[in-house]
């Protein structure tokens, strides 16, 4: 038996380490460890809850803004503030745009190199590549000349001997099996996506001043003042038009590149429709309301739980059944093991090996991530969870989307529960969301034209209007899944703050009962062809789109002011 270690797992957000046992060419066990901790919830204590979102947003700069929206919702829930319709639309637009852009970046820039051999693209025939591209998509850039140009650019990089970001890839690994032409097409689209993502995300600059970390949320609304006749207004007809153009571009990009590329690459890797399943338990908080944000019936993604792959049953989500434990995490509890986030407590206490180390002691504590459970069970969250829960709930939009893809792939629904299933679910979701964006821009435009410009509810802005204590939670379906913030306010300041984050659900370590988390479970039985180049581990872990900075957090630790060492 060999112990494999992948650290750092690159092409993710944050610092993740995977250790796994390899026996007879297959993984027999696996451990997932987050290796970085900052303590943001602790830093939030004592601060003004109205600005918590500015701080919490910095939990992550990849899924930027998801913690902002969860934070303002938590405080609005605590103070019972209703948000105007325009603010809901702007939040949906910002979050929906984030989801589409994030999914595209994930597929092309974080995940594609697990399936696409950049070096093999040099062997492709540009004419054949052009024929292939034109057979699967209407995208504008598909001539042989275009692909030849891309190939020459790649060749220039390779011939220079300076391979830049590609220097350390597992090129030539036997698990890369795409024909050269598919590789070249994918490399070309890697570059197209790189150009597109920075253009499209200008919608965040319009609605938030910048990306990453847009700056326009408010407890009670948004700062995006609307006025049909005012050039200086954040939302005016000119800006609506800009957004409409960007959103149309997004629909086109997803339809012309993302979906066809996923459908073109997947059939070559059919084995991965049966690998990497993991838990089979799915949790979705639901989100993207068409009316009342507090009513899950208005959600684009339905709220619910599916257990053990059983899509005939959708269970309701009971917030009181969510817990986090620290049995294998570098924290201490004052008593008991599993705590509800509203009363969560943690003191960081590192007890792992001293650096530099070769292996973690996985029988003891081995991660900075905590272990969330629903009713004591490990759950998977994310695009696949949303599609599975939506499908099982009978949501027509989601069923049509999933059934269409299954038909194109000529595959049964069971293939969803796999590494490739996650990739497909993410792509379908991006397509579905891109279309929603158009509708929200239209509604905003309509309100503007009818003089409905209210964007902020001022009733509770003054802390003098607050009760002496209040608590609440804010949920959001972030690109990576179910996200929750819990806040306790006392004497106009944050007393307690806690986040239970998508990647904590997926990447957390085992619980006290020894139940594996989603990453750990998904790696079991994965074949690994070359222990020195564990490409297969990356495929399944990347299919979850890890975001480790989000996943590591803490509250209630003992405050210590650190003194800067004097420079001699």
């Amino acid at each position: 038996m060999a112990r494999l270690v992948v650290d750092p797992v690159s092409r993710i957000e944050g610092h993740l380490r995977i250790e796994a046992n390899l026996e007879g060419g297959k993984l027999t066990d696996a451990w997932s460890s987050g290796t970085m901790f900052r303590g943001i919830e602790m830093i939030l204590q004592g601060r003004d809850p109205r600005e918590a979102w500015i701080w919490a947003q910095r939990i992550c700069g990849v899924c930027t803004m998801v913690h902002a929206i969860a934070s303002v919702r938590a405080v609005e829930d605590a103070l019972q503030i209703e948000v105007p319709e325009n603010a809901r639309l702007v939040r949906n637009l910002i979050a929906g745009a984030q989801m589409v852009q994030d999914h595209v970046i994930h597929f092309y820039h974080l995940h594609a190199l697990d399936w696409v051999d950049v070096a093999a693209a040099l062997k492709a025939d540009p004419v054949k590549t052009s024929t292939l591209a034109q057979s699967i998509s209407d995208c504008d850039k598909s001539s042989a000349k275009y692909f030849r140009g891309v190939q020459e650019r790649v060749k220039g990089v390779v011939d220079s001997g300076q391979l830049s970001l590609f220097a350390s890839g597992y090129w030539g690994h036997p698990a890369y099996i795409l024909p050269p032409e598919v590789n070249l097409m994918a490399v070309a689209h890697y570059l197209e996506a790189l150009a597109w993502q920075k253009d499209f995300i200008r919608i965040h600059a319009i609605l938030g001043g910048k990306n990453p970390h847009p700056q326009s949320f408010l407890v009670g609304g948004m700062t995006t003042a609307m006025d049909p006749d005012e050039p200086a207004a954040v939302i005016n007809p000119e800006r609506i038009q800009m957004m409409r153009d960007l959103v149309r571009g997004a629909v086109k990009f997803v339809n012309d590149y993302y979906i066809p590329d996923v459908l073109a690459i997947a059939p070559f890797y059919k084995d991965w429709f049966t690998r990497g399943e993991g838990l089979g338990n799915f949790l979705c908080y639901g989100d993207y309301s068409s009316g009342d944000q507090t009513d899950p019936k208005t959600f684009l993604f339905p709220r619910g739980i599916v257990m053990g792959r059983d899509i005939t049953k959708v269970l309701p989500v009971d917030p009181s059944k969510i817990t986090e434990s620290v049995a294998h995490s570098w924290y201490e509890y004052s008593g008991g093991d599993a705590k509800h986030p509203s009363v969560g407590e943690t003191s960081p206490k590192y007890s792992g090996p001293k650096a530099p180390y070769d292996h973690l002691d996985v029988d003891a504590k081995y991660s900075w991530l905590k272990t969330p459970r629903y009713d004591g069970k490990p759950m998977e969250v994310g695009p696949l969870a949303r599609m599975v829960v939506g499908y099982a709930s009978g949501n027509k939009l989601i069923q049509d989307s999933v059934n269409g893809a299954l038909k194109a792939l000529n595959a049964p629904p069971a293939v969803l529960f796999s590494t490739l299933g996650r990739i497909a679910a993410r792509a379908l979701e991006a397509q579905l969301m891109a279309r929603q964006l158009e509708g929200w821009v239209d509604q905003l435009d309509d309100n503007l034209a009818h003089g409905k410009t209210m964007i902020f509810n001022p009733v509770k802005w003054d802390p003098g209007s607050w009760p002496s204590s209040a608590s609440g939670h804010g949920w959001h379906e972030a690109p990576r899944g179910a996200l929750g913030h819990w806040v306790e306010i006392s004497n106009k300041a944050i007393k307690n703050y806690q986040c239970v984050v998508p990647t904590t659900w997926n990447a957390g370590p085992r619980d006290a009962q020894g139940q594996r988390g989603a990453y750990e479970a998904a790696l079991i039985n994965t074949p690994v062809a070359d222990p020195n180049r564990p490409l297969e581990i990356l495929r399944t872990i990347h299919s979850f789109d890890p975001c480790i900075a989000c996943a590591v957090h803490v509250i209630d630790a003992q405050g210590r002011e650190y003194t800067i060492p004097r420079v001699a």
Partner: protein
Amino acid sequence: MLAPDKNLDDALRSRGITRRQLVKFCSAMLGTLALPERYLAQTVAAVTKARKPVLVWLQFQDCTGCSESMLRSSHPDVADVVLDLLSWEYHEVIMAGAGDAANKVLDRVSKEEKGKYIVVVEGAIPMAEDGMYCTIGGRTAIDIARQVCGNAAATIAVGACAFDGGLVRSKPNPTGALGVHEAVPGIKVINMSGCPHNPVNTAAVLVHYLTFHDLPDVDQYNRPLFAYGRVIHDQCERRAHFDAGRFVTEWGDEGHRKGWCLYKMGCKGPEATFNCPIAQWNDHTSWPIRAGHGCIACASPRFWDHMSPFYERLPNVPGFGVDVSAGELGLGMVGAAVIGVTTHGLLRTIKPVPYPAPPASESTPTEEKKEN
């Protein structure tokens, strides 16, 4: 303009870019750096050198927002920077390799390229608990930083966290986080503060370095003057409203819809230096004040503690005129505490800095006086 150069054209063709694109990019960079056009030929020659300088990008206690910000770079296009301008060999969030293959890159670069490569650092470095709050490949962040920054030609610290510990270091600083120049004293470092850094400025620093083999002139926080030398309030598109006494007094009110001054809503623009209003974000689309929210002074030292509460108006903010000091505003005079918004005119006295002084002068970062 540049004379035709066959070698240059060949070099460009191999990289799949046209001469026109290149000249446009170099001109844009000179503009950001406030350098005259006569440096164009030198800049073009520098960025088309046969062997590309090596760059490695380290991520420690970060949110990856500064990496994402770099991916939003439009001029130059991110692909141009990563593939053509430099050999971008290590960057966890986008590099092909993982695990051992990735760790070997850092070892190779710090040995084989010793004294020649550039390192970008994103995120703070935890010093408490022997550094165990951040490990990569089983090594602590501080261990890696000492090795990789210590052997580099120069370190570029991007974002608030790498600059001075940023959010991670704010009270009570649970992990003993520090900025790079504090955690690894004695290295040559330039700080690109901001939350996140603006990629326009960072690209300009890279081009400056490639062209002049030195970092641009900096202020006492080792931040380049071209980006951090002017007060936001003095460059703000809403300044006329401030001068005329037209203020937003409630979110969504008439003044808010008409783009009036956000000072009364807590805007920290009068106390912050950054070229945010000019450079803007995401291909010059907007910036926070244009989106209706006050400035939070994200490029200022220790802004999380010193500039919050963010909705309190100046000067009712702990940092105002005291901790941030005159030096931060570039006035070089004591007694900044007396500067209220009524004397904002003073802030415009910051002088443009004459640079570069060819030949490139030694620009050793001055040891920062620790504020605490």
